[in-house]
């Protein structure tokens, strides 16, 4: 089972997860990493779940369109949106004390609002 280490506010929280686990879903159902992971909309918009990947990033898929839209240059600093990631390998992540401000997206093609 993959091991997750979450660093936040000077503390490290470690837990094991099943393969193909989304940490925001897990926190949402009140299991590890609840209550230590900050998250919000669960839809790649608010960026409250953003974390910097310290180790294990090589196993993650390429950032999807929402991560590119919301994180922009922060991706190069190792930030990812946890709500968009389904984990199957060990990973060590750090969540900043202050949530990231998400970038404003360009209006999607065909968007009416």
């Amino acid at each position, binding site marked *: 089972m993959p091991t997750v280490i979450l660093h936040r506010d000077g503390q490290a929280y470690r837990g094991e997860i099943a393969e193909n686990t989304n940490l*925001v879903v897990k926190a949402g159902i009140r299991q590890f990493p609840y209550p230590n992971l900050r998250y*919000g909309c*669960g*839809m*790649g918009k608010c960026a409250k779940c953003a974390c910097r990947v310290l180790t294990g990033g090589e196993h993650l898929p390429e950032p999807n*369109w929402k991560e590119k839209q919301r994180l922009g240059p922060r991706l190069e600093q190792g930030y990812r949106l946890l709500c968009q990631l389904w984990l199957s390998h060990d990973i060590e992540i750090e969540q900043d004390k202050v949530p990231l401000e998400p970038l404003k997206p360009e209006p999607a093609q065909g968007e*009416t609002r």
Partner: protein
Amino acid sequence: MPELMNHVDFRTALENAIKGKSANKAPFSIAWASGKLSREHLARWAENHYHYVGPFADYLAYVYARMSDRFTEAKDFLLANMYEEEIGGDRHTDLLIRFAEACGTTRERVTDPDNMSATTRGLQSWCYSVAMREDPIVAVAGLVVGLESQVPSIYRRQTPTLRDKYKFTDEEVEFFDLHIVSDEIHGERGYQIVLEHANTVDLQQRCLKICEIGAQMRLLYTTALYWDYVAKDLPIEQLEMTERKVA
């Protein structure tokens, strides 16, 4: 005579009550997953689906108001669920409308209740009826466990097809992506609430029954979509052959 089940056995019984009635087996879902629907069919789906899921926060609001104030966790869950449907990020129905527009229909057509079928109206009415009349824990079992918890498995199967076979863009199918995460949370929290609070034989049996009926209602709705909008273009025999090939 049924006996009071422990959480493990009760959870298995709830899952079994839904299994077999899963909407994944409806001909519309099979046609969708095999890439055989047209954008016009998908537009009709969106025009109907809006009237089933659009009032979801309204359904939950009735349950919230009637839920005992001693069940704080359950009330908070319902409130969070309503918030996430409406204002937690993008309004979920706006994302559904974005998909509908990509299928060639309009916001006006989607929001017009005259464009839903009689079966969709029946499903919507059943949801309101459960929310207003059933014991609140039984209502959570019906609406959240019986209906909402099915969504991730349905959309997990359908979303890649929308991109790969129907050639929709990522933005156009965002409605489906977000439900894989949010409904996973909602469905599981629904299970937790039902397992904790259905603590008599009678309540457990009523939860099982309503899960079964909820899954039946969704299957009925999805099956009707096929007969109302698709069957004339894609005969059932052709679809059964496709299913056999996939299986």
